[in-house]
């Protein structure tokens, strides 16, 4: 095995890790912001919204993320330049970059999968606890904010943590649209050094490391909230 290339490329891997974590963090954040209402409307209605949310989850979960990513990058990305004046606008540098498209695609993916999980989570909160909240005089929003959502999240937190780790391991797909996250950097190394296995091994080791960090982080969150085991 030959590892002499490593010192030279180490800074780029650090950048790659940063890109990977940004992609993951942003998609989880925006994805959950969508997943919560998507899960909720499927339980509360009204039915047209519930139907729409359901359809969204089905489509997202029914198609490969790779295809979604390409459709969004090559499809959406190729439409924007036709908008008059957009090349001169302040948005152009963002629209030209592949990273936002990756965030968008991964956000939709998280929204689809976690929307389905949140639907079950909202449904699983005992009705009596919601009634107790209403009976004490809470507004519908307070019921959601203080009881329904935290109870739902509490129930599925370990499931969500597992899902987010799966999402981490899907991030190399972003390399196919020129987002140079960890795997993308690995590819560059392979091309430039003609080493085949070592960069791959190294990339694998990074994902193991990141996974362990995430597991520890999620466990910390779970314990910090001092959740009672039910």
């Amino acid at each position, binding site marked *: 095995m030959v590892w002499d290339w490593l010192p030279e490329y180490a800074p780029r891997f650090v950048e790659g890790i940063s890109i990977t974590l940004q992609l993951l963090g942003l998609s989880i954040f925006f994805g959950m912001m969508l997943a919560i209402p998507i899960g909720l409307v499927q339980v509360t209605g009204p039915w047209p919204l519930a139907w729409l949310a359901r359809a969204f989850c089905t489509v997202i979960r029914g198609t490969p993320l790779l295809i979604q990513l390409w459709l969004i990058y090559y499809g959406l990305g190729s439409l924007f330049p036709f908008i008059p004046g957009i090349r001169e606008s302040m948005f152009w540098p963002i629209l030209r970059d592949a990273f936002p498209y990756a965030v968008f695609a991964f956000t939709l993916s998280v929204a689809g999968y976690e929307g389905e999980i949140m639907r079950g989570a909202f449904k699983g909160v005992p009705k009596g606890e919601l009634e*107790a909240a209403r009976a*004490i*005089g*809470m507004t519908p929003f*307070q019921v959601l904010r*203080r*009881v329904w959502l935290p*109870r739902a999240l509490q129930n599925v937190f370990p499931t969500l943590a597992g899902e987010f780790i799966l999402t981490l391991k899907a991030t190399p797909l972003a390399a196919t649209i020129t987002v140079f996250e960890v795997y993308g950097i690995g590819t560059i190394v392979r091309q430039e050094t003609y080493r085949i296995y070592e960069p791959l091994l190294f990339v694998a080791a990074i994902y193991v490391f990141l996974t362990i960090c995430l597991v520890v982080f999620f466990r910390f969150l779970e314990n910090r909230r001092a959740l009672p085991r039910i």
Partner: protein
Amino acid sequence: MTTSSYAIELRQLRKSFGSVEVLKDVSLAARKGEVISLIGSSGSGKSTLLRCINLLENPTAGEILLNGETLLLRKGKSGLEAANRRQAERFRSKLGMVFQSFNLWQHMTVLQNVMEGPVRVLKRTKADVHKEAVALLERVGLGEKLYAYPSQMSGGQQQRAAIARALAMQPDVMLFDEPTSALDPELVGEVLQVIRALADEGRTMLLVTHEMRFAREVSDRVIYLHNGQIEEEGTPDQLFGNPKSDRCRTFVSSIHS
């Protein structure tokens, strides 16, 4: 606003689920400080009656008054709905509901459960509420359990915590829906003791119960509900000692054992 000697008043309340009429023209009024027990066989509509009072169930017809103030209702999909959401929320905050299944919020400690309503609904400061909540929990014998989660407590403890949670709102009327029915027999006493203390201090209460002896002891008035109608009402001694209707007599004697 009219002043009324009634804390809570129901006028010609009706409730149907689909085509089934569960409450048929129920009227009752509780004076301030009065303890009224509702008894009746399973399915007679006792829970539905209590749940209509704070609009957990939408009545089909009727009027609800709290301290003489009429709850504004309007026709909706599932019956009469709150016409003014804020008013309905204010009504609810003054009606302390205690459920058969406790319904404590499982993600909060007992203390948080008790503080939640005063802080979030009544918008009082945490520091203020904290002292009161601790005092309330001590009063129901849970001074040692402030930081326990509901899942770590016995049914009797949970129900006492739920009563403290309702009391923390300083309600005008307490509504109890079979507060001891889900408890193991040996835990019933501790909860009844708390409820008895509330009755003794002059709280207005509507109490649905199967504990006939207890109802006889604490109530000022007992109402026997049958098929969604008030079949008989009177003082505990009248109703338990010398019921007029045969059905009530049969019911009372079957449960008295």
